[in-house]
């Protein structure tokens, strides 16, 4: 029963049918949560007593940074599933996630830079977190570039999976070595973490935003995986029956 369900889920056709029902809900939920969180966070949450209104960037910055890291781990898990069990769907999902992850990493860096101007007085600071985030962006770019270079070859999926797994082992090593480097080289003048604990009316909208971003991730992944399925299975009979093309 369980296995039959998993097999159906792991087949592109079964997933295509299931995701058709799921993805509108994900999109709707993401729109509600992000819309509500935006209005709550930008309009109604109290201003920070130190940073004033500029702290509201947190409502984009923190969810983007969380997603940036989660998506890489999700890609690595998908890569592992693909390498071990040869589930083609896992690689399709990993392909679908990668650009979103790179985008979220960029968004986190960009919103951090914008936030840095009023709080630190500079666009860029070689802070441990900024540096490891930048390296994460390069890791994403590497995976995207490898997929791009290998194109539609059979080996592209497996090569990208191996690279993602190597990357995910390195992420904690890079993170801690950069933190150590930072404490050695730079005085900890500014720290995002040393802010006083937030009151509930500030972090509740943040929680809503984080949940909204995860729903968005789910929705984007489902939709993009559906497109990827159609692209790769275009010569299959069920796809041709679906689109009304073919022999």
């Amino acid at each position, binding site marked *: 029963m369980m296995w039959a369900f998993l097999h159906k889920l792991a087949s592109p056709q079964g997933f295509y049918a299931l995701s058709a029902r799921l993805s509108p809900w994900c999109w709707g939920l993401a729109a509600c949560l992000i819309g509500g969180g935006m209005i709550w966070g930008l309009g109604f949450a109290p201003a920070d007593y130190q940073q004033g209104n500029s702290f509201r960037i947190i409502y984009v910055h923190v969810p983007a940074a969380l997603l940036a890291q989660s998506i890489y781990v999700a890609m690595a898990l998908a890569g592992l599933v693909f390498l071990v069990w040869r589930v083609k769907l896992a690689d399709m999902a990993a392909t679908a996630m990668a650009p979103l992850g790179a985008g979220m990493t960029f968004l986190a860096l960009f919103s951090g830079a914008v936030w840095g101007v009023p709080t630190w007085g500079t666009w860029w600071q070689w802070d441990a977190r900024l540096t490891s985030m930048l390296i994460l962006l390069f890791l994403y770019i590497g995976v995207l570039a490898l997929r791009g*270079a290998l194109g539609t070859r059979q080996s592209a999926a497996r090569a990208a999976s*191996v*690279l993602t797994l190597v990357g995910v082992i*390195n992420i904690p090593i*890079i993170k801690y070595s950069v933190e150590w480097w930072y404490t050695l080289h730079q005085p900890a003048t500014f720290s995002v973490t040393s802010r006083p604990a937030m009151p509930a009316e500030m972090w509740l909208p943040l929680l809503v935003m984080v949940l909204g971003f995860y729903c968005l991730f789910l929705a984007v992944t489902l939709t993009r995986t559906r497109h990827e399925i159609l692209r790769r299975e275009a010569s299959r009979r069920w796809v041709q029956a679906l689109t009304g093309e073919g022999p």
Partner: protein
Amino acid sequence: MSRPERYAEPSGANRPLIAMMRRDLLLMMRSPGAWLNPLAFFALVITLFPVGISPAASVLSTLAPGLLWVAALLATLLSLEGMFRDDAEDGSLEQLLLAPQPLPLLVLARVAVHWVSTGLPLALMAPVLGIMLALPSGSYPMLMASLALGSAALSLIGAIGAALTIGVARGGILLSLLVLPLYVPVLIFGSGAVQAAIGGTPVAPHLALLGALLALALALAPWATAAALRISLNA
């Protein structure tokens, strides 16, 4: 009769390994460019810094540890492309994949030769360039030790990237994109060791962490490289 004969000789298990290392070393000696070019590149890049930044010894000496490490890292990076390419082109890499010896072990032999032909010469040459950058005295042994230790990790990590990009035409820039982010921890602890030696703070933690990175790479990278080789060649 031939089967038992093949397995009856336990001492012969690492003989192909030694034969392969000997062949790789011989090839390296016969094409001096393979190990001379990274050295020339290393010296050339180091020459660019005084020209581009400032010839003042006071400026250069503070930058020297980082500059030497970054230049050595780039020289290693450029030499990675040749690690499997020639063998892939003439088909001997396929023979390696078919060999009865475990592929990660053969990969390790290849990486060892790469380190002997790149990392070790770079470490030996670094003090000369250190003098030119006015690197404070007393840190020279640490420069060599950290480069020798760190470049072994660089060769191991780089082998994964080299194996993944075999099939890619003009894969050099792609290889750097894949490998450079992974080199960051080695760079941090490598140049950190030299800076600690200059500053008079304990160097042992830096060297220990470099060693830890090397041990981790030694344990994992040959397997990842072997998997990547199989993926690239099955295409």
